[in-house]
C-alpha cells in the first residue's frame, strides 16, 4: 500500500500501480472456476459437475453439482488448502417453473408441379421441466478470497424436492436453509433442525414459488390502483367498478 487512503487519491497520476489490491475488498480467487471444476472432476470422477457461466460483467460463474456428491464436494472445498472456503455467506433459493420452449422446424417440400420447393414451418413445443435450486456463496476467511458459487437442483418442483443439507459442513447454512425450506419448499436432508423459519408451522404454501397464490384479502381497498385494483375488483359490484375506473370513452 502506498500509505495513502484510497479515497484520498485525487488525480489519475496518483492512482496505485495495477498490481495493487484494495485491502478492504475481497481479492479474486487464486483459481478460476474452470480450474476448480477440473480439480473437482479429477477428485470426484463419479460426480456430475457443470460450470454455469455468468455472462455479465461480474462473471461470477457457478458450479452446478449433483445432489449425491454435494456434501463430499462441499467438505472438500472447505478443507482444501488452496481454497479453504471456510465461510458460507449466503444461501438462497431459485424457483425455475416448467417452461414451454417453442421451436420452429422448417422443412422444404418439393413441388410436384416442378416449381420451387415449398418451405413448411412446423411448430414444436418442448416442455423444459422446472426445478428448485439452492445457491451457496462461499468465501474464505483464512485466505480472504471468494466467492465460489455452488448450485444444487432438485429433480422437480412437486414431489422430488430433496437436497442434501450443507449445514453439517457450514454451520451458517442453518437458518438460511430453513428459510429456503419455508419459502421454496426444498427439503434439506440431514439438516439438524428443519422447521419453518418465517411462516408459522401450520402454513402449507411456499410463498416464493412462482405459482404461489396469496390469500385474497383485498375486500377493502380505498385507494386501489394497478395490480391492487385488479385484485379488488372481485369484491366490488359492477357499479362501483365503473365509478373507480371512470367513464368509458
Amino acid at each position: 500500500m502506498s500509505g495513502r487512503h484510497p479515497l484520498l487519491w485525487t488525480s489519475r497520476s496518483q492512482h496505485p500501480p495495477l498490481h495493487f489490491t484494495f485491502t478492504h475488498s475481497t481479492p479474486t480467487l487464486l483459481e478460476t472456476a474452470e480450474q476448480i471444476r477440473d480439480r473437482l472432476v479429477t477428485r470426484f470422477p463419479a460426480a456430475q459437475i457443470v460450470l454455469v457461466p455468468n455472462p455479465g460483467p461480474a462473471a461470477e460463474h457457478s458450479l452446478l453439482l449433483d445432489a449425491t456428491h454435494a456434501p463430499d464436494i462441499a467438505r472438500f472445498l472447505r478443507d482444501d488448502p488452496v481454497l479453504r472456503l471456510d465461510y458460507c455467506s449466503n444461501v438462497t433459493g431459485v424457483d425455475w417453473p416448467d417452461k414451454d420452449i417453442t421451436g420452429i422446424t422448417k422443412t422444404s417440400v418439393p413441388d410436384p408441379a416442378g416449381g420451387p420447393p415449398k418451405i413448411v414451418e412446423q411448430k414444436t413445443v418442448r416442455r423444459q421441466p422446472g426445478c428448485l435450486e439452492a445457491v451457496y456463496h462461499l468465501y474464505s476467511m483464512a485466505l480472504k478470497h471468494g466467492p465460489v458459487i455452488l448450485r444444487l437442483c432438485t429433480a422437480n418442483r412437486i414431489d422430488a424436492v430433496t437436497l442434501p443439507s450443507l449445514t453439517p459442513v457450514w454451520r451458517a447454512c442453518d437458518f438460511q436453509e430453513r428459510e429456503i425450506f419455508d419459502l421454496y419448499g426444498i427439503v434439506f436432508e440431514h439438516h439438524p433442525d428443519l422447521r419453518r423459519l418465517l411462516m408459522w408451522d401450520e402454513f402449507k404454501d411456499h410463498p416464493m414459488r412462482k405459482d404461489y397464490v396469496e390469500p385474497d384479502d383485498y375486500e377493502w381497498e380505498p385507494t386501489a390502483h394497478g395490480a391492487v385494483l385488479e385484485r379488488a375488483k372481485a369484491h366490488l359490484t359492477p357499479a362501483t367498478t365503473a365509478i373507480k375506473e371512470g367513464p368509458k370513452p
Partner: protein
Amino acid sequence: MEMSDPAVTPAPFPAAGNITDAEREELRRHGILLTSLEELYNWGRSNSIWPLQFGLACCAIEMIAAATARFDIARFGAEIFRPSPRQADLMIVSGTVTKKMAPQVVRLWNQMPEPKYCIAMGACAISGGPFKQGYNVLKGIDRFIPVDIYIPGCPPRPEALLHGLIQLQAQIKGEKLTGPDAARHTRPEEPSEFPVPEYGAHDLEPPHNPDVWSPPAALDKP
C-alpha cells in the same frame, strides 16, 4: 361536568348534575370546588394512561423517542410503560403486524384489564401500510381488536403520538360511567376479550373478526 341521568340513577347530591359550568366556575372563585365522582375518576384515569411496553417495527423507535426527555410523554402521565398486560391501560400497536404476530397481539389485548384503549400507530398498524400487498402482513390491527385512535404516518413523529395520546385523554374525560351512553367498559354486554385467530394452512383463521371489522359498505354502493 354533567352527572348521570337522574331518571336511571338517583342523583347522590341534589344540584350536582344540574349546575352549569359558569355557576361552578363562580363557586370556584369563592374557593368552593364542586366536582363529581365521574369527573374525578376520568381526570385521574386520563392522566395516568400506562401503555403496554412492546414495539413491532420502526414506529416503536418513535414511541421510544416520545418517552425521552426531548418529547417527554411523562408530561401526560403516560411514561410508565408496563412490561405486563395486566398492568397496562393502553396498547400502542407501533408497527407492522405480521400475520404470525397478530394472534399474540390479540392475546395480549385479551389479557389487559378493562378499561383499556388501543392506539394504532403508523400506516402499517392502520392498514398494512407499504407492506399491505405482502402475503404475510395483516391489513390493519382493527381487523381483530377495536381501535380508539388512529395515528397516520410512516412512522408518525413523536409529536403525532403525543397528539394521539391527548385525543385519547379527551375521549376518556368525556366518558360517562352510567346511563344509556355509558362508556364501553362499564357495559357488561360489550366484549372485553376477542377471539384469537388461529394459524391456518394459507392464512389466519378467520382472516378478520367480523364482529369487529367488516369492509365498509359505502364503497360497494353505486
